């Protein structure tokens, strides 16, 4: 099953979009972050509204990770401000960001493969029963909730005792997303959730991102993969060498523009030209040496693609 049509249909559903005069869920204004002499971020701005997917695009080293860590309370910005619901905030720790409803799902640091689904789901937020020294982790309750929540996001788990390591990469990411949402996240920051995944697994994750948006969450989707960002993004912010390289709305921009804004576009065109030249150079000699054999080979022509 092709993923794209389903995602498109989901995108057409009217999400619980907040009107534009309501303050954004999370806004970063003119954020700068320095590590010694290194300028990691310089005057970067980004915002996400309820029911929107804000795509943050950038090549490796563009400052994506630094920006996420600033938004999620790991780093404090050297300059600039963060605002939640229009109110300026300062995060001293990831816990502060979590308490403000901002949950970050890191690429491969979101789940423990050796722990069970239930234990992963409630790590750091375990429900308890009993009092005083006899307070204990309410595992039956946790297992029940984990099963329900996994079902809600479309993963039917028979046994929540099963180790997360037995789930696929896409399922692990969706578990982390479902967990963040269950624990009251209003803003989901997803750090390259699809970069280590195959096509089908990526589609599963993208579909869940859109579903979360349609439930009224604000999503910041970090990726360097334009073809994953385009189908699901409401707005696109490009980060290039630590600076905001451009901001676009859905429908205003196509993949070529995004690529060139990311700073990789020129390199990609250059690479395409080089590869085409290389392919032409390789095809010519045998065709010239054995004229009869060339009849079996496709005739070289201007409409012939460089690769088959």
């Amino acid at each position, binding site marked *: 099953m092709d993923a794209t049509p389903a995602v498109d249909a989901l995108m057409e559903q009217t999400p619980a979009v907040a009107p534009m005069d309501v303050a954004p869920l999370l806004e970063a204004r003119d954020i700068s972050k320095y590590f010694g002499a290194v300028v990691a971020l310089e005057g970067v701005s980004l915002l996400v509204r309820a029911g929107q997917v804000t795509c943050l695009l950038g090549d490796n080293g563009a400052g994506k990770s630094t920006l996420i860590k600033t938004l999620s309370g790991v780093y404090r910005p050297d300059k600039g401000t963060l605002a939640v619901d229009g109110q300026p905030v300062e995060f001293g720790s990831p816990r502060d960001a979590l308490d403000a409803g901002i949950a970050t799902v*890191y690429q491969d640091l979101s789940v423990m493969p050796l722990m069970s689904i239930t234990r992963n789901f409630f*790590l750091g937020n375990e429900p308890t029963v009993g009092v005083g020294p006899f307070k204990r982790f309410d595992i039956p309750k946790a297992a029940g909730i984990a099963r329900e929540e996994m079902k809600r996001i479309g993963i039917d788990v028979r046994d929540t005792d099963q180790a997360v390591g037995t789930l696929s990469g896409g399922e692990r990411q969706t578990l982390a997303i479902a967990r963040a949402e269950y624990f009251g996240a209003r803003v989901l920051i997803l750090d390259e959730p699809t970069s280590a995944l195959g096509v089908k697994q990526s589609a599963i994750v993208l579909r869940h991102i859109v579903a979360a948006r349609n439930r009224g969450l604000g999503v910041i989707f970090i990726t360097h993969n334009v073809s994953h960002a385009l189908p699901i993004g409401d707005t696109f912010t490009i980060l290039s060498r630590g600076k905001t390289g451009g901001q676009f709305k859905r429908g205003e921009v196509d993949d070529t523009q995004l690529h060139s804004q990311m700073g990789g576009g020129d390199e990609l065109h250059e690479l395409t030209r080089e590869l085409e030249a290389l392919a032409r150079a390789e095809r010519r000699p045998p065709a010239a040496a054995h004229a009869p054999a060339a009849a079996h080979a496709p005739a070289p022509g201007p409409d012939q693609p460089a690769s088959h």
Partner: protein
Amino acid sequence: MTSTTTAAPRAPGSDRLRDISLAQRFLGRPAAGALIIVLFVFLIFFAISVAQRGLDAPFLSLAGTLNYLDVAAQVGIIATAVALLMIAGEFDLSIGSMVGFAGIIMGIGITIWNLPVWLSIVMAMALATFLGAVNGFIVVRTGLPSFIVTLATLFIIRGASSVLTSTVSPITYIPVDPTKIASDPLGALFAWNLPIQLGGGATTSIQVSIFFWVLIAVVGVYVLGRTRFGNWIAGVGGSGAAARNLGVPVARVKIALFALTGFSAAVLAAIQTTRFTSADILRGTGYELDAITTAVIGGSLLTGGYGSVAGTALGALALGMARQGIVFADINADWYKIAIGTLLLVAVVLNSWIRRKFAGLT
């Protein structure tokens, strides 16, 4: 492709799970390998004993069983704490030195300073717990591997025991007056044993170490499996960064477990000091490796995030059986190290095979 424009996501993965049998479920537990190892060790010494002396062999007698249970208990008391620490992704190589050091503190308190036995024991326990916490603090603060940090403290603590002892005594141990121990509530508790009448006027006894071991193991199983803190232990070991992102106080968990390891060393030191009525600077030498071996046989991963307290108790049982089984069978005691090394290797291979095959983990 209009047929695919369904909004509801499918249930991916549900067709990828199969029903598994009860036996497979059992083998998917981290302690499964340790249970197999214990049965294996028991059968070997059972066979040797029966071949040598039939069913009257000492290994099979009640006295013999209580003897190897006592040996298992002494390893098991510290191995439980070491296993929890390993599940949290850290090592403590200083635990053997800590056993010696805590004993020396008790000896100095009782014999040199003439303090009550209970006060000396409490003092040593507090100090060992504090030093354990210091180990943890250094590891957490520097971010250095605990293997290196505690290797350093292994030397420092062992050296401190020698230096301290040399300032108060011309010899390398401190004798403790048995009557003082017997008349002190805490001293008597750690030196206690439950006598049992055997047929024909013979007696044996259950050492208090066995009760402490069972108590500590039961509490450990409960904490790891049924409490928030237990969930944090596994999470911290699985990935410190991810656990921190989820709000788990990673540093506090690790420091607490290092402190617990120090405390468990002092418990063992109290048992040994009161039973042998002396403190020796060399006591506890090599225990750190026994404890790690036990935890690994019990199914704990050196890399953290996975392990079992129940498995560790079984690992201690296997170690105790092997050590005393060799003694009872009149085999040269040098074979013990060969046996333990072999056991460790077999257990690691078995455990990793079980993890792959039955728990579906790599």
